[in-house]
């Protein structure tokens, strides 16, 4: 699989809009500014995934992309444990980050993932005038690569590479870090390109 320049650009722009909305929703919830990196779009060979996704422990919240394309792929929020604990503290008014992840943290991770990803998919879908909805979330707190394997296994039975859209959200105070990964299946990707193409020609 290879992306031409137009496709990579279009996808980056689409993801940019989605990620900006996710960042805004996070910022509103935390009442503090959130910075966002320029999104990256990459085609990654499954054998190289371990060079791309590390094996540090992280909270991984996964959503299947549903809607007009029944099984469009996956969208993932990945956060370090300290970030999750900080977010729980912010929401509950508690303090102290030097502790183990508990059930409250797990609920917080899922809730924050939900809010961010709903904003992400809403914004992109609205732009394209289609319906894209997140499935109920699934959570793993484990080596990031181990969690991604299960997702890749669902996507790469017949193909050997995966398209990954990635952007990072950060805040300095409180020190918070999160990554958003979108892994569209080829069918959804094709649909996105067609819609983006229409959008560009109609506005040109």
């Amino acid at each position, binding site marked *: 699989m290879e992306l031409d320049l137009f496709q990579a650009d279009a996808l980056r722009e689409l993801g940019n809009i989605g990620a900006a909305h996710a960042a805004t929703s996070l910022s509103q919830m935390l009442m503090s500014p959130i910075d966002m990196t320029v999104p990256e779009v990459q085609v990654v060979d499954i054998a190289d995934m371990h060079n791309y996704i590390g094996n540090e422990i992280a909270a991984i919240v996964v959503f299947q992309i549903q809607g007009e394309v029944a099984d469009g792929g996956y969208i993932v929020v990945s956060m370090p444990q300290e970030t999750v604990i900080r977010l729980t503290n912010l929401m509950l008014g508690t303090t102290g980050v030097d502790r183990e992840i508990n059930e409250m943290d797990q609920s917080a991770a899922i809730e924050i993932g939900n809010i961010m990803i709903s904003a992400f998919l809403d914004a992109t879908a609205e732009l394209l005038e289609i319906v894209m909805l997140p499935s109920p979330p*699934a959570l793993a707190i484990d080596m990031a690569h181990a969690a991604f394997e299960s997702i890749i296994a669902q996507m790469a039975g017949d193909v050997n590479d995966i398209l990954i859209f990635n952007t990072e959200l950060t805040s300095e105070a409180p020190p918070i870090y999160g990554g958003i990964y979108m892994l569209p299946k080829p069918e959804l990707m094709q649909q996105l390109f067609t819609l983006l193409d229409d959008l560009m020609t109609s506005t040109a």
Partner: protein
Amino acid sequence: MNNNFFSEKTAVILGLGELRVGTCPMGTIGLGSCIALILHDQRQSFGGLAHIMLPESRGNRDRPGKFADTAIYTLLQEMEGGGSTVSAITASVIGGASMFEYSANSLNIGERNIVAVKDLLGDVGIRIAYEETGGRVGRSVYYWPEKKGRLIIKRADGTCVEFS
């Protein structure tokens, strides 16, 4: 990702769907639902490792390490080519975790991988010397064919086990 686990320069980390037979140290990092299948020949001090992703190849042939069925036969074939006999080979099976809570769907493929690998090993008559499968924990595996098949498994919760 840097991996300083192996001090040896010849060590290889096998990614998703990769497979290797030889004498060099081998490993996989961050196993989730996938399986690390190690076939070890104690007499010849060599062996192979496959980072298996799915139970059945369904006709896919380009990456034999990716599927349980093609991985086992390819590992065996390459080891027999190197002078091993089935009777001298033992297997270690690690991984096949179900990583996600609150997930009713297909993300939990680990169990199917475990069944497929163990059934196939039974079919070809290879004894399982060590098995650590299932659960909800990610694992990293390191294997030294030349050091009596020394094996280290590092779990996501920080615990570590070693065999030789």
